[in-house]
């Protein structure tokens, strides 16, 4: 039974936060190993090969992003960044280096656990995502083979580009995708007007989806960072 548990590496220098995160994860049924600084985090990563890493960016020895780069050299192990920095640029930088998600301190337990579950699920499904050809979440259905999108069983007519964006977001559902990641996937190049182009397309998608501001929508806006599709059900 014990072997079935997901192994999570927590790299965080503040004892209180580290304890809190470890307790929450253990209570959630995960096996937890923890490191207090970047170098021991690196060692534990190579010796244990965890299924997920929760990484604080502001570590005493080396900046957390270095560990992130190290991990990304040879694996796709999901990494959730814990950050006290509320600056968008830091988040975007971490995401673009390869972090799967970020949680800003202070965070609630529910929020953290949801992100952990989502990151693990994404990594587990990532290879077989297209195999069944259908994405379903809370009334939204995407048929990848027919390239059609339905909400509550009625079809939503999307343009090519709009469909491509939705498909890309849904494949990585639960994960924040930065503007530049989406633009690179959809248009292949990145120029000055690209973000505006993406924003206009997103506005059209919202209109077609009948999204109401402040209500639970399929696509979450992460201002200044990117977009996140709700998780598949």
């Amino acid at each position, binding site marked *: 039974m014990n072997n079935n548990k997901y192994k999570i590496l927590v790299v965080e220098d503040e004892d209180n936060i580290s304890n809190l995160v470890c307790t929450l994860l253990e209570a959630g049924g995960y096996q937890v190993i923890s490191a207090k600084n970047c170098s021991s985090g690196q060692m534990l990563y190579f010796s244990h090969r965890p299924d997920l890493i929760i990484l604080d960016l502001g570590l005493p020895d080396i900046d957390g992003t270095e560990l992130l780069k190290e991990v990304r050299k040879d694996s796709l192990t999901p990494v959730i960044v814990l950050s006290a920095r*509320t600056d*968008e640029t830091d988040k975007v930088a971490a995401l673009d280096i390869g972090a799967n998600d970020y949680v800003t301190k202070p965070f609630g337990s529910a929020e953290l656990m949801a992100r952990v579950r989502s990151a693990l699920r994404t990594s587990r499904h990532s290879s077989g995502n297209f195999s069944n050809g259908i994405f379903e979440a809370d009334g939204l259905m995407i048929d990848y083979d027919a390239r059609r999108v339905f909400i509550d069983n009625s079809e939503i007519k999307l343009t090519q580009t709009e469909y491509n964006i939705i498909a890309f977001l849904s494949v990585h559902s639960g994960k924040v995708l930065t503007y530049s990641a989406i633009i690179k996937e959809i248009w292949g190049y990145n120029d000055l007007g690209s*973000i*505006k182009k993406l924003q206009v397309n997103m*506005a059209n998608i919202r209109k077609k989806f009948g999204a109401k501001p*402040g209500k639970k929508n399929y696509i979450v*806006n992460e*201002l200044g960072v990117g977009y996140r599709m709700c998780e598949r059900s």
Partner: protein
Amino acid sequence: MKNISNVIINIIVTAFILTACFVICLIIQNTIGTYSLIPAIFVLGAFLTSLITAGYIYGIISAVVSVLAVDFAFEFPYFKLNLTITENLVSAIIMIIIAFVTCTLTTKLKKQEAFKAAGEKEKMRADLLRAISHDLRTPLTTIYGASSAILENKDDFSEEQKTKMLQSIKEDAAWLTRMVENLLSITKLDGDNVKILKASTVLDEFIDSVLIKFNKRYPNQEVIVDLPDEFITIPMDAMLIEQVVVNMLENAVCHAEGMTRLCLNVFTLSNKVIFEIKDNGCGIDNERLKNIFKGYYNSDNVSSDCKRSNAGIGLSVCSAIIKAHGGDIKAENQKDGGAVFRFTLDMEEQVNE
């Protein structure tokens, strides 16, 4: 850069005053023909130069040039330098002493003024810090007290009591978080060179994000939203402006007694976007309204229904944020009751593709 331009200005001032003295003296000499006024005029010139320019150097240069000019042009023998005449030498020394003393006095005065201004700013900061530390201590007392009580006397409390205490810990921690957010914005805005990083933000994404945040804190408060249909982008620091709107909505919930309707309207007027937060509660006292955005902190606006309010600090932060974006902010009472807060931002030029 600033230094160089200062030097240039000082040189220009010195040269201008000297030339003016010279011209005036020439006129006097050619019309009235008296010489007795001439040294006085140059003394006045050296005095003015020392007063206006910064430091000693310009005043002294001006005094020396004046002495030479008087000697050269206006005293016997004309158009010849003659420093051996005792009278000329004495007047030169007097002029240099005047310039030196004036420079010393003005420099001292300028220093004192700067010192006083710094002192006032320091006092304001100290007041702010005192007010904030007082306010931080209150929630910390709850958090510390409740958590240690639960840890030390686990079995003495009923489940219900424990839940209640934990609830208050959570609430106060959330309040602290918001307070810290506000403080962070102040530090961002407080410096002389406010640097706001604006990114073009889509209006309805922004409002969506605001409402999600607000609903998390006040799940039972409905907000009636009215947005324009067009695709509008606004260059702004989204995090800061988000804080402004959430602060204003929160104020309505905390202070507008008897409110049944809370509206968030956004509309455009030429190239401006106008945000309007409207409630139908008790309105704002006229006395309060005058100074509502002023001062970092008003200790007397701790209202009865919200045990602690961040309204004082919140609204001055809001105002600073909007001003730093080059916008306007206003608060007023509506004719049919309730308060309305309005602020404007510039929208991005529409580019037709």
